[in-house]
């Protein structure tokens, strides 16, 4: 249990030297490298944090931009919808107008077609009626009917006004004019005489007479004096009748 003071003193010195040696070559280098690594890690952490903040800022910016785009898209969609609605309304109005015009045109065409059909039907009815009447009258017509018609014509000539007579006389006064008399059957002499006398009185002169037979007249007589034609036969009357009915409102 004795203390060797030399050893005691040298041990103190030795330990202090060892403290210096280890501090210089062990603790300080290791602590320095740990500090450098920690600083590097902190720097990387700071950089990572900065990057994270930057990324978050970009994310917020991106989200804001997305919101803006969404708003712009909604606005554009609304505008497009409105334009489509307007265009559709415009197109629908145009189509409706076109349809209405087409419908009006079709209505006019239908009306015209109907009128045409009605007119054709009327004409056919009149033609058929005239044909039927002509067929019936052709059975009933005979010389006595011709004479009665001539008598009726003579009576009409006698009832002509002075002006009418003057007109006929003017036509008959032209050079080369003769009186053509067409009957359905040969006219008997008495009737011819009666007709000639009546015409001479009406024309205030005696024209050369030319008689002909046309069975299509059915019954009665047709007298032509120049441009004037006096109709007193069933066929012309039926035609006048048909024409009169067609022209009647």
């Amino acid at each position, binding site marked *: 249990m004795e203390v060797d003071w030399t050893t*005691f003193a*040298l*041990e103190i010195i030795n330990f202090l030297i060892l403290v210096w*040696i280890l501090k210089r070559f062990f603790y300080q280098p290791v602590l*320095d*490298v740990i500090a*450098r690594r920690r600083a590097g890690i902190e720097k990387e952490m700071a950089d990572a944090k900065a990057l994270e903040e930057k990324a978050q800022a970009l994310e917020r910016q991106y989200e804001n931009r997305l919101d803006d785009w969404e708003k712009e898209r909604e606005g554009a969609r609304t505008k497009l919808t409105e334009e489509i609605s307007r265009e559709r309304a415009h197109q629908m109005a145009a189509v409706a107008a076109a349809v209405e015009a087409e419908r009006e045109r079709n209505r006019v065409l239908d009306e015209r077609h109907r009128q045409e059909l009605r007119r054709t039907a009327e004409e056919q009815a009149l033609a058929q009626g005239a044909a039927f009447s002509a067929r019936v009258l052709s059975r009933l017509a005979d010389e006595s009917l011709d004479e009665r018609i001539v008598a009726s014509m003579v009576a009409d000539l006698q009832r002509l006004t002075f002006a009418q007579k003057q007109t006929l006389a003017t036509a008959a006064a032209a050079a080369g004019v003769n009186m053509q008399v067409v009957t359905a059957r040969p006219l008997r002499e008495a009737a011819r005489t009666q007709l000639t006398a009546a015409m001479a009185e009406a024309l205030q002169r005696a024209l050369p007479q030319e008689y002909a037979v046309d069975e299509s007249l059915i019954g009665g007589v047709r007298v032509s004096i120049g441009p004037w034609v006096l109709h007193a036969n069933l066929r012309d009357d039926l035609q006048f009748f048909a024409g009169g009915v067609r022209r009647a409102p």
Partner: protein
Amino acid sequence: MENAVVVFHLGPLAITATVVTTWGIMLLLGLAAGFATRRLSLDPGPLQTLLEGIVSAMDNAIRGMLPQRSQMLLPFIGTLWIYVLVANLTGLIPGLSSPTGNLSVTAGLALLVFLSVHWYGVRSEGFAGYLRHYLRPSPILLPFHLISEVSRTVALAVRLFGNVMSLEMAALLVLLVAGLLVPVPLLMLHVVEAVVQAYIFGVLALVYISGAMQSQETVSDSDQEGSS
């Protein structure tokens, strides 16, 4: 064990085997530290990881008691741990004896701890402020503080010396009595004892120093709380 063999004389100084062994340990630790730390990099290998682990463990242990002073105390406390551990284990090498089995060595270390307590205490609180802590909580306790200073220093030296010396002595006696391989379990116990005693010595030194600096730490903490 106590009467160390004088290896040679350096002038008036008788250099004992313990001192030579200590120089050997110093040389070994210095060379090992120099080689181990010559190529430190930010991407550590296994050896560097081990070194950083050792330093970080010691730093964390000190930081647990004195969070603000770990950098200042690490060289002294860390060297105590390392030197005492290596010195304790030196006894396992045939032909060598543990320097810590010499009371002169442990007394020197204990004296260094004793002085370092006051050194760090004065650095922390100033001379007058440090001396005032002997009067707290009451000036009546001043003798007890003084007795405590001496007794714990003596206990520090004798504890380490006694444990190491007794283990080596026991191993020697068993070797003499039982034969070559019988002391092996005792030597295994020596390893454990070496680690435990090194840890106890360093932790006690840290506790003593932290006790001396504690009042300054308290003042610093209260200042920080007040400023915040």
